[in-house]
């Protein structure tokens, strides 16, 4: 069994028009910038994939990564908790002109819905959002005298994930707070594609410290020195690079 993929283009080749794609990261930490840019490259060459529904905590920052994906017009709908950032102009403009749909989900509910999708739990109850506009039209139930909102699982066709180390079986570790939504999205997608800084031999990861066991992963591509969104934005980068 070998889940390694030779290059970024092959890694994202399965993403098609209209799919739901979970993209890991919290702001720039744990954001799989190279995988996102590979999707953009294909779209610019072939016109596809487009009409994507993207699940991410945020809505991009500046003009790279998720913001660039949105800027290209590839995203029809965004499911997120916090579509604001230091430079949210790309999402804000499209949202306010009605070019992108937004499903706003409280952050903990978003995480739990994704986990539920991966764990085969179609619905659960949470106190979060009870009595607020975000609970509108959702079933409510009382347990032990307290009111809870029913939330549904969230699944995806693809997950694009950034990890730190990986092996050919798909076992993964993460780097500090870049872990965030990434391990959950690995569980909830039919096909999970991961960029790692280094591929190690099986046994090269401590079995006690593997955060994502390989069963949740379908493809692993090595990206040795991954770009960090924060660094790109401080350098005012855009993707694709502005014409020279």
């Amino acid at each position, binding site marked *: 069994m070998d889940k390694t993929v030779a290059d970024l283009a092959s890694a994202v080749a399965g993403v098609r028009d209209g799919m739901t794609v979970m993209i890991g990261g919290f702001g720039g930490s744990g954001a799989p910038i190279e995988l996102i840019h590979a999707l953009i490259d294909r779209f610019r060459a072939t016109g596809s994939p487009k009409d994507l529904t993207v699940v991410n905590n945020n809505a991009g920052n500046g003009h790279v990564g998720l913001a660039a994906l949105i800027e290209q017009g590839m995203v029809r709908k965004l499911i997120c908790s916090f579509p604001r950032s230091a430079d949210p102009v790309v999402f804000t403009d499209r949202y306010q002109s009605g070019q992108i749909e937004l499903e706003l989900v409280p952050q903990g509910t978003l995480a739990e819905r994704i986990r539920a999708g991966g764990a*085969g739990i179609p619905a659960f109850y949470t106190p979060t959002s009870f009595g607020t506009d975000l609970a509108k039209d959702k079933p409510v139930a009382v347990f032990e005298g307290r009111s809870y909102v029913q939330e549904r699982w969230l699944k995806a066709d693809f997950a694009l994930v950034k990890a730190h180390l990986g092996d050919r*079986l798909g*076992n993964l570790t993460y780097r500090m707070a870049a872990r965030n939504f990434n391990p959950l999205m690995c569980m909830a997608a039919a096909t999970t594609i991961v960029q790692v800084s280094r591929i190690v031999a099986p046994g090269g990861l401590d079995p*006690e410290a593997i955060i994502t066991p390989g069963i949740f992963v379908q493809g692993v591509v090595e990206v040795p020195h991954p770009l960090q969104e924060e660094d790109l934005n401080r350098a005012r980068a855009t993707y694709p690079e502005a014409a020279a």
Partner: protein
Amino acid sequence: MTLKLTPTQMAWRAAQDIQDGAYVNLGIGFPEMVARFQPPGREAIFHTENGILGFGEAPVPGTEDWDLINAGKKAVTLKPGTAFFHHADSFAMVRGGHLDVAILGAYEVAETGDLANWSTGPKGVPAVGGAMDLVHGAKQVAVITDHVTKDGKPKLLTRCILPLTGVGCVTRVYSSLAVIDIQGGRFVLREKLPGLSLDDLQNLTGARLHLDGAVTDLTVPEV
């Protein structure tokens, strides 16, 4: 002529259907033997409910580490790529549909795919373990079972009589006499022991056996 397959032979037959790279959970007891018969060149990855993926064979007796056991509480070993996780993550793998195959034992299987394998009735101490989870999790849920009970009564039935483990969950039966798929609420015969007539097999089966294409010989080496 083979009168019926031994449990070991049923395990061998079941092992032939496991693809390279498949994630597999083997139930406690006979199904555990499936791991011994992986065809050369194929690498299945075994999952155990108590939180290990990709474990290896039994250790040399005397070298057991009792923190490294499978769901049957038997000692196993590490392999390169083994991963540990807690019970909620383990059953997320099961319930979430991440396993390719689960192979379980059975008291009774119905043509509807219903399975009874956890309780023989109100007597004794009931125990369910992970069986009710496994039947709903894996993409394929196969059963290894004698075709009939010790008293010669059919175990493949139109409806289960014993308490159910799951509804409409079994997809394939490896019996001591035949290989049978469950499709659209029917038993579809795929393989039977050579020398066993279709009529004789039907007489030992508590529900109608349907044909859909050729029935091939179920031939298993002496293992």
